[in-house]
Structure formats: structure tokens, C-alpha cells
């Protein structure tokens, strides 16, 4: 089996993580942090069918012998795709053949790295109408992340999500908590020539808070507690892996969409 590319993720602890009872909590968290819910690096697909029908039993009523599984099955999470024409945190056509959902956090260094190194390649697919990108901020690092997510939506309401997102992850780096204060975020909007008054009002509006909370909840419900995490054409994957991993997955999803 080819070695899977190393996945760069930022783990996060949470209540209710899988943990063996009786071991130190810190260890449990360290271990559980690697279990990114439904997210993983897809391994080599199974290509050789196993002989024997599923769930078949011998004449004795006992299960048939089970071949040792070669890899972990990936779920189909296509149902998580929003494809909402009113979604301001999305790029690309609503009916694009492939959707990439990005579960991210504005204080996650690997999210910044991915945005800087891989997002441009993904946008080439968007420009060709082949891909839609839907951004979902899970805000695992708390209040500053959540404020930044609200700011990004406020920028989106003035048609500048991509530019604002790029500023928050400028040069592939994250901003400090101080640089994510309301004042700093409004100032960033000013740099882009946005209506800062409107921006501040939107950033603090109930509607924006609700949208950001719903988006975060989607990621939490899916177990995307290590960022960045992605769903590419319904298949989950984790980590800021090399760009070619993403282009391969998108190409594969495009091929599948063509039947």
C-alpha cells in the first residue's frame, strides 16, 4: 500500500471525545484528537471484490468466514452539500458537478497554509464551472475565531468574501487574537474599501451570528474537530495535504460525476 500523505491538522479537544475510561484525560484528548469524526485521509480503494455475499451464512446459520478488511470504508456525505444559491460563503455554480466543503478556523495555522497553497488551484476548477467551494467555519478556537467568521460573512454581504478571507490568512499565516478584535476586523474591511459602518452592523447582526452558528454546528455534528477538514464530492478527508492530493480527488470526483 502506498504511504498516505501526511495530514497536517490542528487537533482540538472536546467533551464527549472517544476516550478509554481510566486513562489520564490529557492522553485521551491527545488520542481522540486524531479521530476527526468522520474525516480521514482516504486510503487505497478496495479493488478486489471479496468472494461471498454480504451477510451470508453457512447452512449452519453461522456467519460465513469474513475476509480481513483492507481499509476503512468512507461514507458518502453528499447530503452535506448546501448548494444554496443564497449562500454567500460559497464560490462557484450551484449546480457544479463537484462540491468542496471546507471546515476551517481562522486561528488554525494549517487552514491558513491550505488557503495560501491549495485554494488557488481549487479556484481554477471554480473558474471552469467544475467546482463549488462552500466555506464552513467551525470556530473550535473560540470567541476570536467566531468573530472572524462573522466578519468574513459581513464581507461576503458586500461581495468581498474571497478577498477578506485572503487577508485573514495573509501569506499563509494566521492572525493573533488581538488582530481579530472587532476594531482590527473592521479596519481590515476598510482596507478592502468596504462600507465599514455597514460591515460592523452586519458583523454584529443576529442573522449573521445565526448563520455562522449553524455552519459551525454542521461541522461539529460531522465531527470535524480537527481543522482543516474537507468533503470532496461527498468523500471526507482531513488535513492540509499537498495540493496534488486535492486536485486528484477533485479530478476523481469529476470523473465519477460524468459516470
Amino acid at each position: 500500500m502506498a504511504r498516505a500523505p501526511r495530514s497536517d491538522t490542528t487537533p482540538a479537544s472536546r467533551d464527549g471525545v472517544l476516550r478509554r475510561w481510566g486513562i489520564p484525560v490529557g492522553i485521551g484528548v491527545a488520542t481522540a484528537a486524531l479521530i476527526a469524526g468522520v474525516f480521514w485521509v482516504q486510503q487505497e480503494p478496495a479493488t478486489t471484490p471479496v468472494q461471498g455475499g454480504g451477510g451470508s451464512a453457512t447452512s449452519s446459520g453461522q456467519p460465513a468466514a469474513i475476509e480481513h478488511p483492507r481499509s476503512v470504508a468512507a461514507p458518502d456525505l453528499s447530503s452535506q452539500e448546501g448548494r444554496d444559491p443564497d449562500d454567500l460563503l460559497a464560490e462557484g455554480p450551484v449546480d457544479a458537478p463537484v462540491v468542496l466543503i471546507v471546515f476551517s478556523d481562522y486561528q488554525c495555522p494549517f487552514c491558513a497554509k491550505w488557503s495560501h497553497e491549495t485554494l488557488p488551484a481549487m479556484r481554477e476548477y471554480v473558474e471552469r464551472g467544475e467546482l463549488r467551494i462552500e466555506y464552513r467555519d467551525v470556530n473550535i478556537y473560540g470567541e476570536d475565531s467566531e468573530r472572524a467568521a462573522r466578519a468574513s460573512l459581513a464581507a461576503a454581504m458586500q461581495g468581498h468574501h474571497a478577498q477578506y478571507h485572503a487577508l485573514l490568512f495573509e501569506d499563509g499565516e494566521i492572525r493573533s487574537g488581538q488582530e481579530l478584535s472587532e476594531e482590527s476586523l473592521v479596519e481590515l474591511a476598510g482596507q478592502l474599501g468596504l462600507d465599514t459602518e455597514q460591515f460592523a452592523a452586519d458583523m454584529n447582526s443576529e442573522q449573521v451570528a445565526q448563520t455562522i452558528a449553524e455552519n459551525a454546528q454542521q461541522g461539529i455534528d460531522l465531527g470535524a474537530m480537527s481543522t482543516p477538514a474537507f468533503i470532496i464530492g461527498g468523500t471526507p478527508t482531513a488535513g492540509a495535504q499537498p495540493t496534488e492530493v486535492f486536485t486528484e480527488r477533485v479530478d476523481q470526483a469529476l470523473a465519477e460525476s460524468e459516470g
Partner: protein
Amino acid sequence: MRRRCVLAALPLGLLGLSACGPEGGGEPAGPAPAPPVDHPEPVQLGELAEVVEHTEVRLPLEMTPMVVVDPGWSAAPVQLDDIFLGYREEETHLRFLAVDQDGTVLWRADRPLTCTGYVLTRGAQKAPIAVLADLAAPEQDGPWAMTLTAYHLRTAELLWGPVAAPGPQAAVGLVYAPPTAQAMGERGPRTALSGVTGEVLLDEEQLAGGRILGEHLGALVRTEGSELLASGADGEVLWRSPLPAGIEAGRARLLGTVDPTTSFAVIGDQDSPGAVIDLADGRVLAEEANAVARDHVLEITVVVSGTTVRGLEDDGTEKWTHEDPEPLQLLCAGERLAYAVRPEEGTLVVLDTNHGLMVQPYDVDRTGPLAVPQVFSADTAAAVRIEEQYFLVTTEFDENFGRRE
């Protein structure tokens, strides 16, 4: 690796093993049995099994902080009261190894390299016992006779036997039946033995049409008319209930094995899905079931029926469902995860038992064969399979976990 017909709690006679039984009845269907071993009596050990380096096993991440040992099993062990019993195949014999969930090898016992069943059940005072089959030389020319001997599962103390087996194992637990002329077909009437004494507890011929379905931890499960009932070591009826709908009494059977940590079993027949029954009290826990497992951490019962997996609360409330593209073969559940196999795709389906979501519990940066859990104890020790090897993830925390490279 050669696959021997050594199965715990399986109807061995249906697997071409009637040659192992007494009075073979014509041409043996399987290979001639190997001669008995010289020293079948168990040897107490009390030593830690060989510890496995964490780099050698690709475990579900939850298990990685724990000490893993290699008892040397070459087949999936069975478990009772936190003790796992499995065997390995050696050149001249089978070596059974009983291992405590902390990794201590309690005892070993050798048996002929032939088709022989083994059962874990309860004996006197509810003690956990291991019943091993053996071969005894016939008094006259003829086939070797199969015998059964019971040992205390923890101490290996001889409790009863050897007693003549009424035939190869025919159902779950201490249930045996003689072969008939149809070596691969139906066998003769079943006989259930007592875990307390090894003596005959009940013969199917006494049941006036009733059927012995299996023996589980001292309880004998059988049909009587259109009812299902369980009786104890003294013949007392423990519970009685109507057979679940759609199951024909004459064809009812226990599907698969019965988890001793729950006593949940699937009872069905050849033509319809089964029902999950708690053999402790006869309650029907779920219908439409092929297999059942229990996650003791979240106290969720996982029920598989074809492509559908359900997570049930203790009161029967359906907490979640998962619909899979393939009919799944359920392996086990434990530590908030349920494990099943997609046979056609050859992949492992892992569901979290809280929500029923598919998860990837293995370190994605590692390669190599997966260590797939097969059997959990109630305290979440687990026997894991890595291709043709079976290791034990113990209940002992690895003190070096935090210092690993």
C-alpha cells in the same frame, strides 16, 4: 495458512467434521483425526504474554495507549468473565491459551491437531469454565471417540470429565448431536450437557417435537410448541415467551454466537430475519435482525439487518440508523464504536455508537494492515485481528505512552 476446523460454539458436524465424532457412520467426511496429545492436562502459567511494540500494530486510536500482547492465537478467541481463550496451531497439536484481560497468560492446554470444538460456559456456583474436546482411543477397532473435559477458566482446575461427547457440537454451547449417514446434512437429535457435571441435561428426543437451540452460561434455550423457553441446571424454567413472529418453531435456531457480556442473541430461521432476545429473561429487544452487539461504554445495542444498522437505547428506542450500500457483517462493538465488514468491497465500516456516523478511527498517517477488533470484554479489553494473527489489547495502560517517538 491452513485453516483448521477448530471453531468455538459452531456446529462442527455441518462443516464436514463428523469424522471427529464417535461412530463415524460410514466414510468419514473430513480428514482422519490426528492422534491425541500425550499431555492434554492444562499447564498453569501466570506470566505476561509477549508485549507487542506499538509500532507493529495499527490500532484504532482509542486503543493506542494500552499495552498490547501477542498470546500467539491464530484464531479469534472467545471471552467470558474477562478471560479470553483462543488457540494456535502448532506442528503436531493445537495449543489453547487462556489469557486474562490484563495480558496474563493463565494457562495452556494442548489438544490434537484436528477438528475439535471448545466452549466457555458456567459450571457449579456460576464459575466460568472452559470445555475442551479431546479424542480417546476406542476400546475396539473403530474411530477415535470424542470426549469433553471442563476446566475452571481462571485456574484450569479440572472440574469434570472426560465424558463421552454425544457427537460433534451441534449448536451454541454444550449442545451435541451424532452424525447421520448424511454427513453434511441434518444430524441426529441434539443433546445438551450440564456445565455443572458434564452429564446429559436434556435430550431432544424427550421434547415431543421441541428443539434445543443452544446452551448459554448454564441456561438451556429450546422451543416447546410455539414457545421459546430457557431452563436452568436443575431443569427449572427460567423464562418462557412466545416465539417471535415469523419464526417457525421447527426451524428456529440461534444465529451466530452469543455475547456473554450481554446474553443478547439473535434467534431466527432460514427464511426470515431473526429477533434479538435477551437470553437472561426472554425479552425481545429488537426484530428484523441478523446480528447484534453491545457497546458497554455508551450502553447502546447495535443491531444489523442486511444493509441497515440501528443503535438502540436500553428501552428499545432507536437512537440512530445507518443505511449501508452493502449487507454488512457485524464484528463487534465497544468503546463507542461498532465494527462491521462490507464483504464485497472488502472494507471495514466503523460507526460511532452515539450517532451512527461512519468514522475513521485509525491513524491515517500509518500504513499496514488494520488491527480490527473482534471481541470485547465488558471492560473494553479487545482481541484484534491483524490478517491471520490475533492480539489482545489489554486493560493495562502503557506507562511509556507519553514518551513514545
